């Protein structure tokens, strides 16, 4: 096999190896990547999400270790072009037939005094982010030098770390490379609302040390600005030292000079990404790096692909503000005209740059609302589909769409996927967005084109079914809206008016949950009883031998010795197996249907109530002991956990809801593995949402910081009610956040900033839930009709089911070996 060595293991290297090994079906190449970072390639573009709760695992790119040799924690130290070898820091000398430089760039550190003080950091790698986090722990103020795209991401990171944050930009306005003065003015205003102050047209002349020798302030040409953490984001410099030492030609501003084949002055050596200089330009974005990687992959396999420059369009969310820039955003084309909507009141700025006869779209800038970006960007260089002003007026976003575009128009600029590629994939059987992503890579980088993918699927007649089941063509969220709007309170009426047939085990529990979320009395009242899954039907959890488990609520995991004794006595008297759960309570297993009321009666008498372990409802709010006992605690986590559990108990939802409260950043309650995770800070509470354990573990991500008690409860009220209203059936909060257009940012806009104006409504719904809460077990005990359902047999209500038998293991009863060994697979469901 021919030997390919890739120096560098960032996103460009990853893309190259991925593309090459996919296409190299004959197995011509053996690829080796040498990366100095201690971990495999990760999504550097999404680096900032690290501060929003993403973990190293979330950032990881597809594992290529099975397709190539990935050497991590090792640097290439020299290239011998004559011998065709690369020497590494580990002392290895590796021969190559082709060499690719993918060394990326290094952050530019301005040559000001103090730039090397402790507390000063670049912003490029996961290690940098860890170092910034560590510095921020002992800091209250932070500054970012550089107000470009990455600088604003860094500013958001400092803000999320709790620092008073400033951005210093030498140019007259923020993001000078991408946007114009008008857009930047709005951006600065919106960023200021988040507590980040921008100082533009300002030079940093020195970084001043404080006590202990760490950074303390910036000297802004005479003015001092407190900054204990300083992040440099003042541009990048290609890392071309290896290329230089190897005698390769360099570009005018550094970088290995490459031709359209991405080949350097040595035909056996290529360069891609931010270390390459193509026609004198070093591209600092992902799309050109990907295009270069694809070019080299093709060339290595004998192809003739050429890199001819790349689209530098971007769409981002910076500090929660949508910003997009595409094509000739600055109107540098001869005779270009601007069409601008600058609505400071509703915080929207949109500019289109059009040709002198206003017939062709050349570029544009959007701030505040960038939804039109996906439709406008592919139109660059093409005839405008209508009046340019209409395209950027609030109602106009729909007038431009992918339907009218020709097949060669690029829909995904990150991965250079055209409409034709997507149509071919749809014709080839891709029936939904995930399938389209897998087939074409479209939408897998920045994701801004995903709405276009949906439109293309719809245009092709591929139905994106959100139908609940064969009985309802509507989704759960739609049925929820129908029930809310019409006041329908029974399944029979709902299916008669909005469905067909008599329902099934999919739609009935889903509708039962909707009706319960809207507050329709006891879940076993009237017709509702027949809708419930067996767990809800018997207010207990069905086990494999037909018995049930009983879980009384133990709010926050706090329990008195007397109550513990009661649970022990009940278990002993009814012969139940006991086990401590992961949610800080006690599970009593092995109860027969006819025993349930007697067990509940004992528990209810002792002051217990249902723990809703059986329901798609709030389960527990776990807690650590907090300030009451813990030497490290900074807030009273137990009281908060109990308050939250008592507030949300019985709340029916699309899926179960788990929560936890930790009394300090050590996070002993594991709150970030919960749907709602609360972590104490010195100033209050940080609220994380969207975590879960299970088959696909997810860390919760930060929704809001430093809330006081009232603010925390208000935020959770709104979050949970928004989830209940809009999520799909059996969709945990993590999956809901992933499928929601706009994701966590959208939720933050609705929940924290009340973007939809429904916050008061959501809070009122929650208030109604809290006021209407009744213990479901007590509800059965007090109603003879409901009580009559808890019979083993209709003709022998107290006769034990003869098929249930127990054996003893470790002094406790467990189901005797079932008749059928092993559990069969559940039937496949769509």
């Amino acid at each position, binding site marked *: 096999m021919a030997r390919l060595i890739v120096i560098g293991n960032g996103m460009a290297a990853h893309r190259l190896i991925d593309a090459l090994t996919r296409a190299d079906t004959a197995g011509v190449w053996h690829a080796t990547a040498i990366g100095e970072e201690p971990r495999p390639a990760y999504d550097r573009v999404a680096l900032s999400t690290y501060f929003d709760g993403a973990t190293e695992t979330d950032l990881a790119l597809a594992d290529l270790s099975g397709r190539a040799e990935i050497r991590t924690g090792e640097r290439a130290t020299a290239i011998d072009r004559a011998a065709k070898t690369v020497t590494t820091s580990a002392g290895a000398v590796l021969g190559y037939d082709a060499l690719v430089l993918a060394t990326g760039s290094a952050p530019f550190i301005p040559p000001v005094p103090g730039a090397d003080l402790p507390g000063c950091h670049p912003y490029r790698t996961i290690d940098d982010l860890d170092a910034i986090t560590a510095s921020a722990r002992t800091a209250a103020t932070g500054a970012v030098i550089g107000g470009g795209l990455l600088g604003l991401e860094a500013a958001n990171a400092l803000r999320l770390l709790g620092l008073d944050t400033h951005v210093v930009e030498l140019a007259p306005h923020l993001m000078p490379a991408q946007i114009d003065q008008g857009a930047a003015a709005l951006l600065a205003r919106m960023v200021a609302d988040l507590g980040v102050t921008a100082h533009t047209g300002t030079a940093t002349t020195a970084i001043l040390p404080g006590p202990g020798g760490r950074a303390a302030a910036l000297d802004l040409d005479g003015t001092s600005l407190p900054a204990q953490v300083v992040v440099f984001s003042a541009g990048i410099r290609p890392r071309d030292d290896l290329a230089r030492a190897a005698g390769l030609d360099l570009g005018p501003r550094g970088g290995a000079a490459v031709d359209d084949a991405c080949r350097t002055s040595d035909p056996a050596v290529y360069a891609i990404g931010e270390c390459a200089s193509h026609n004198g330009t070093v591209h600092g974005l992902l799309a050109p790096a990907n295009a270069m990687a694809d070019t080299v992959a093709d060339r290595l396999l004998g192809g003739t692909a050429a890199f001819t420059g790349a689209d530098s369009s971007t769409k981002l969310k910076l500090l929660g503000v949508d910003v997009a820039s595409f094509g000739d955003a600055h109107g540098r084309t001869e005779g270009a005209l601007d069409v601008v909507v600058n609505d400071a009141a509703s915080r929207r700025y949109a500019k289109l740059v059009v040709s002198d006869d206003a017939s062709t779209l050349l570029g544009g800038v959007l701030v505040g609302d960038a939804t039109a970006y996906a439709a406008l960007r592919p139109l660059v260089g093409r005839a405008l589909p209508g009046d340019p002003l209409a395209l950027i007026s609030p109602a106009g976003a729909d007038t431009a769409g992918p339907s009218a575009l020709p097949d060669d128009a690029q829909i995904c600029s990150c991965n250079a996927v055209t409409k034709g590629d997507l149509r071919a994939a749809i014709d080839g059987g891709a029936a939904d967005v995930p399938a389209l992503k897998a087939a074409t890579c479209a939408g897998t980088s920045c994701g801004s084109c995903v709405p276009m993918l949906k439109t293309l699927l719809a245009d092709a007649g591929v139905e994106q079914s959100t139908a609940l089941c*064969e*009985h309802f063509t509507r989704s759960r969220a739609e049925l929820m809206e129908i029930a809310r709007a019409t006041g329908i309170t029974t399944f*029979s009426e709902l299916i008669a008016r909005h469905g067909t*047939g*008599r*329902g*099934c*085990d999919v*739609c*009935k*529990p889903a509708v039962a949950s909707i009706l319960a979320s809207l507050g329709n009395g006891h879940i076993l009242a009237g017709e509702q*009883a*027949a*809708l419930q*899954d*067996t*767990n809800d*039907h*018997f207010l207990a959890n*069905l086990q*494999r*031998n*037909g018995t049930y488990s009983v879980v009384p609520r133990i709010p926050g995991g706090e329990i008195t010795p007397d109550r513990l004794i009661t649970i022990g006595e009940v278990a002993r008297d009814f012969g139940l197996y006991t086990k401590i759960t992961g949610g800080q309570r006690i599970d009593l297993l092995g109860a027969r249907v006819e025993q349930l009321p007697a067990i509940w009666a004992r528990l209810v008498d002792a002051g217990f109530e249902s723990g809703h372990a059986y329901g798609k409802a709030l389960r527990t709010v776990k807690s650590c002991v907090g300030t009451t006992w813990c030497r490290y605690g900074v807030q009273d986590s137990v009281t908060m956990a109990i308050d939250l559990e008592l507030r949300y108990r019985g709340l029916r939802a699309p899926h179960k809801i788990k929560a936890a409260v930790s009394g300090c950043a050590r996070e002993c309650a594991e709150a970030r593995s919960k749907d709602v995770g609360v972590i104490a800070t010195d100033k209050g509470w940080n609220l994380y949402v969207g975590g879960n354990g299970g088959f696909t573990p997810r860390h919760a991500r930060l929704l809001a910081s430093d809330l006081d008690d009232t603010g925390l409860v208000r935020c959770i009220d709104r979050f949970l009610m928004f989830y209940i209203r809009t999520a799909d059936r059996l969709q945990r909060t993590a999956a809901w956040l992933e499928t929601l257009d706009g994701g966590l940012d959208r939720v933050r806009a609705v929940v924290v900033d009340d973007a939809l104006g429904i916050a008061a409504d959501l809070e009122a719904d929650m208030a109604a839930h809290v006021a209407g809460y009744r213990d479901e077990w007590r509800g059965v005990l007090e109603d003879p009709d409901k009580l*009559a*359902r808890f*019979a*083993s*047999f*209709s*003709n*022998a209500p107290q*006769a034990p*089911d*003869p*098929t*249930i038998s127990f054996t003893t293991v470790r002094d406790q009863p467990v189901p005797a070996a*079932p*008749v*059928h060994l092993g*559990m*069969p*697979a*559940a*039937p496949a*469901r769509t």
Partner: protein
Amino acid sequence: MTAPTTAPARPAAPAWVPACASHRLQPERGVAVLLPGGAQAALFRTHDGALYALDNTDPFTGAAVLSRGIVGDRAGEPTVASPMLKHRFALRTGASLDDPAVRLAAYPVREDGGRVYVGARPL
């Protein structure tokens, strides 16, 4: 519809087991009936009033829980879904809708004088 209630009496008339008062059998909510000899039937009334009884034991898991399943329909065919792993069965025939090789025994049912009866032996 060939409801089991209309099944002709056999020469040796089946022993009918009184299951419950009619008003106790609510539409789409099953009950379990203990039969002589220890067998169990799951008895259902569908929305249109028709009565069905099947073996109460879920053949896929061995647990006697079918009466606690959700009653509905698949393309108009009345069904019950086992609460254990959600396998569905046709109420008319006992046939599994997930595995053609599996069929539950069906029992005769009749309603008379305000009471519902299940046959002591399957059809």
